[in-house]
């Protein structure tokens, strides 16, 4: 062979990359789609693509650590006799007992209460541990109605009617047999060990007109005291928010595609729904068009990680945010301290997403009593509280730099975008220009 002839180096396909090839082989071997937890892993336009325009000559800042910057928020002011008053605009999103251990649910309640905010039940009912440790608890009302009963409904501080979630808008929940323990089976009235599939539609209402009647029933049963939230996955945010308001919601929760799930098909997580950033402005526009902005509160979720994300979400018009995945990380999820065990599971810390298998070394996404006992709810709750307080301090830092005496005084004018996509989605100017794509005819 003539070694002097230049050889074409091996070239891999951009379309059939290593991940794609491995997934084809896995599907061919197992005959089942990939199921996993968490939200989308693809890179999508996000809050990282926005920057704040701090104060300078044309605007003056507030003194850090001295001049006050408010963080409180009241949710449910439209109809409820007892709105929820939170110290910080960062809430804990709905995550079920079943997908999470009882210890993890308790830790979420403890951390949220210490930080002055609310936590939320999930698709599986309310546990005494969670209610006992949550000063303000939002009760999710889901299509499955697992564990649903009027006593728990009345114990809640607010009710969240779940229509969809960002990781799988249009899809129902999934809890595989490994996690259907005796207690989970009893709470959900299901046989132990089955692969449980939650319904994707509510069993007794269809469409916004029916939803209005359902909300009326919930208000009657709770004496018109509790705020009623409506949660939707990010798909058509303008219309969904408008219809939720029309149906009588006090609060709309809007979850973008970065929002996590306990277990869903990967194809669903990665290919259905739109990014959180793309949800926000159409949602706010719907509220503004109806004269309901700040009257019906908007909670945005999906990929919120830092005080900067919080500040940007609020600047674009949200009243509060919700965190799920980030809260689990604060508790200890995917911590490198468990690296050896992650390796044994065929993964690595930071990438572990087989939450449906119930073998979480951190004791969070499991029903295994030995693994779950690893999580100390008191210590984990403290970690979550610390994290929530840091996020709040970060958001205040940014707001003061923009001259705002309350986080809710942040506004789109405080922002610019690093990319065309983010500028178009957030409807703020590309950095260094006055150009907002789609505005002014081009």
């Amino acid at each position, binding site marked *: 062979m003539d070694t002097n002839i230049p050889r074409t180096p091996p070239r891999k396909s951009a379309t059939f990359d290593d991940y794609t090839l491995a997934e084809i082989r896995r599907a061919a071997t197992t005959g089942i789609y990939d199921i996993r937890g968490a939200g989308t892993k693809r890179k999508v336009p996000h809050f990282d693509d926005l920057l704040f325009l701090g104060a300078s000559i044309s605007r003056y800042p507030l003194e850090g650590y001295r001049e006050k910057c408010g963080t409180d928020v009241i949710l449910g002011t439209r109809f409820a006799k007892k709105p929820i008053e939170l110290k910080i605009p960062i809430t804990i999103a709905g995550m079920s007992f079943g997908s999470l251990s009882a210890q993890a649910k308790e830790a979420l309640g403890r951390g949220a209460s210490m930080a002055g905010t609310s936590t939320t039940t999930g698709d599986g009912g309310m546990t005494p541990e969670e209610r006992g440790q949550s000063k303000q608890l939002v009760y999710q009302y889901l299509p499955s109605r697992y564990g649903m009963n009027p006593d728990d409904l009345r114990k809640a501080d607010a009710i969240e009617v779940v229509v969809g979630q960002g990781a799988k808008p249009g899809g129902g929940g999934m809890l595989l047999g490994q996690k259907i323990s005796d207690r989970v089976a009893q709470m959900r*009235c299901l*046989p132990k060990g089955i*692969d449980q599939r939650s319904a994707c539609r509510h069993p*007794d209402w269809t469409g916004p007109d029916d939803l209005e009647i359902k909300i009326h*029933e919930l208000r*009657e*049963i709770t004496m018109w005291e509790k705020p009623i939230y409506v949660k939707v996955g990010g798909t058509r945010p303008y219309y969904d928010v408008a219809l939720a308001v029309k149906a009588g919601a006090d609060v709309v929760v809007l979850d973008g595609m970065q929002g996590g799930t306990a277990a869903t098909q990967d194809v669903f997580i990665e290919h259905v729904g739109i990014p959180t950033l793309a949800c926000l402005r159409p949602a706010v526009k719907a509220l503004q068009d109806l004269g309901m902005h700040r009257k019906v509160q908007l909670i945005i979720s999906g990929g919120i990680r830092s005080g900067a994300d919080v500040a940007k979400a609020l600047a674009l018009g949200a009243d509060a945010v919700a965190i799920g995945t980030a809260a689990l990380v604060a508790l200890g999820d995917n911590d490198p301290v468990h690296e050896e065990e992650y390796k044994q599971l065929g993964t690595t810390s930071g990438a572990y997403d087989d939450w449906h298998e119930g073998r979480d070394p951190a004791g969070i996404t499991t029903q295994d009593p030995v693994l779950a006992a690893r999580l100390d709810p008191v210590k984990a709750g403290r970690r979550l509280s610390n994290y929530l307080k840091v996020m709040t301090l970060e958001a205040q830092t940014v707001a003061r730099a923009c001259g705002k005496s309350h986080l809710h005084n942040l506004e789109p004018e405080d922002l610019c975008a690093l990319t065309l996509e983010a500028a178009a989605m957030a409807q703020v100017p590309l950095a260094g220009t006055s150009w907002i794509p789609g505005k002014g005819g081009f």
Partner: protein
Amino acid sequence: MNELDLKAMGITAINQTLYKLPKDTNERHWIIRNPMGQHAIACGLDAPLQVDIQGHVGFYCGGMNKHAEITIHGHAGVGLAENMMSGVVWVKGNASESAGATANGGLIVIEGDASSRCGISMKGVDIVVGGNVGHMSAFMAQAGNLVVCGDAGEALGDSIYEARLYVRGRADNLGSDCIEKEMRAEHLEDLAKLLERAKLKHRPESFRRYGSARKLYNFNVDHADAY
């Protein structure tokens, strides 16, 4: 016996009158007049009251009921006695969609027909329908008994879990994983009790029993056609 006029009082005042009664009240029998098909009548009751509703009701009548015995002297709208925990809800006429949806306990009797999705996701309630039920009844039904004295519509018991279905008439279009099952002595005994509670004279032997084949309880690619 006490009377409440919904036309005069409005639905919230009616419900709150009933909610505020102590559980050991002597004022147990209440009549609601002029229901006018309104929604959420007598939902969320939590005391052993006897409530007679004189006319037709809208959505969610008797929803989440505990302990109360509610009789509707007319037809019922969507979501009758949804998520009921205990007690009795009795309809003299027909019921619309999703009667007894997700209900956990108690007894629902519908003397006439029930529309689609009767007993959807039921979790322990007993439902007796004097006439027919519509399509997708007992969809994802988890526990409890559904007795149908007439015919069952399409896809009966689709994706059913552990609920038991008894049908006297036609049930020739079963949903995924729903099969006919042997009617053993204990089933005949249970069915006889349910028919007696519903004041129906049918012979238990004239019914057939349906339930889960349990083939969809854990994912199997060879069953993909059924999903």
